[in-house]
């Protein structure tokens, strides 16, 4: 890396090409993650574009290309969290379509699945973020703390309360006649 002030090739066009390759590789995972965090594909599309813009502006400061995926994901998470915070001023009450099951045949899932889906959507944004990063992005608690800039204790606490709420919904559905009580 001697002589370089950032990742990848030195020339502008080579840097553009490298950025394109790296973002393309990461795009699907980031888009899915953003949709879950924001609860809206429309918002996720905007968030991903903003994240790409910031990533490009800071691309020269990324010294290790192997860190690109985690670095870009962190930008996406921050953009999404910023959008969620802004809902404090512009509050959206509905979440487009994510409450509906997306099973391949369109069939409704088990009662527990439906309850769990609704419970995930109903979680406060900070708790949903931790759940999504833990069970969808498969990050460790330490990695979640790093990605969100929160203290480890805060992450643990949010996950605890989120899982408590999710468990309650899941167990309640499990006890219903349509549930698969185990």
């Amino acid at each position, binding site marked *: 890396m001697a002589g370089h002030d950032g990742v990848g090739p030195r020339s502008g066009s080579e840097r553009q090409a490298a950025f394109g390759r790296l973002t393309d590789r990461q795009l699907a995972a980031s888009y899915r993650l953003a949709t879950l965090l924001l609860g809206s594909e429309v918002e996720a599309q905007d968030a991903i574009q903003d994240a790409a813009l*910031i990533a490009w502006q800071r691309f020269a400061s990324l010294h290790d290309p192997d860190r690109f995926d985690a670095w870009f994901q962190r930008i996406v998470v921050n953009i999404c969290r910023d959008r969620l915070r802004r809902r404090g001023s512009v509050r959206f009450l509905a979440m487009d379509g994510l409450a509906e099951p997306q099973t391949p045949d369109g069939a409704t899932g088990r009662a527990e699945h439906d309850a769990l889906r609704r419970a995930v959507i109903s979680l406060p944004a900070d708790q949903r973020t931790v759940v999504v990063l833990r069970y969808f992005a498969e990050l*460790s608690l330490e990695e979640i703390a790093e990605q969100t800039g929160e203290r480890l204790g805060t992450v643990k606490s949010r996950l605890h309360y989120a899982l408590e709420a999710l468990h309650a919904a899941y167990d309640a559905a499990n006890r219903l006649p349509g549930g698969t009580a185990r």
Partner: protein
Amino acid sequence: MTDERFIPDGPFESDLRAILNQMAPRDVPDQVRAEVAEVPFRTIQSAGHRWLPEGRRLAGAVALLAIVVAVALLAVIATRSTAGPGSATPTPHSSFISGFVEQTDGVAGYRMLRPTNWTALGGDPIDGRVYLGPGPANIQQGIVISVVNLKVSAASTGSGAGMAQWLLFQQNSSLAGWTSGIEAMWARDGETFTLLRTLPHAKIYVLSPAPGSGLVFLVAYAIDQGQPLIVQLQASGTEADLSRLEAQGVVDDFATMVGSITAIPADPLNVVPALPTSGPPLPGPS
């Protein structure tokens, strides 16, 4: 890395993972993929450097630059022709802001003094416009301002039926009535808020999320020409301190911006000065 991710799943964890996977979209829309691919060629300025697109994009970049310069010149001429002795652009108090420029943003439906040295993001009718303050890329540390015209936003979402503030405005479209409804909503939600300033056409509140969250919000609700506008400043990390924001002059500068805001009709082509993230992408590679 820790071992906790390798703890065997129970039925609940397994179902939770399955649900999240079902909820996430399977494919990235082609439009998103194309727009992200364009980003390196659309960015005009970054971190004090000037990135000029290269190769086949150069002609498009030169054309864009010419348009930007022409628009800027027209804006200067228009400003000089209308500016009277008492209408000089205010000087910022905060070191975060190098100067103010009057931004006409037909994408989001507002005109307002905004910081010249901040990075514009977003730019859509629903979410409005975002300005990212100077400093680290990390949004967890710094200041971000967002601007939304709720009438434009509601029209773009169809009816705006899901937007709490729009519904409250429809119930009472006076500044006092609208903000009273919002205050009641915050009180119900357990939000901690304080009215910071009252301007002729706007009220500025400070919202303090949970202690330790590292966030402070200044939220302004303004009404102009019967249209509700929201300007929000989010301060994070070390900046999330109201006393510090006041001492640095950030609150005064925010009030200056809020005091200058007016509503304008939605018109995506009416963005002056041009913002780097707005407008159609440059022509792609041939």
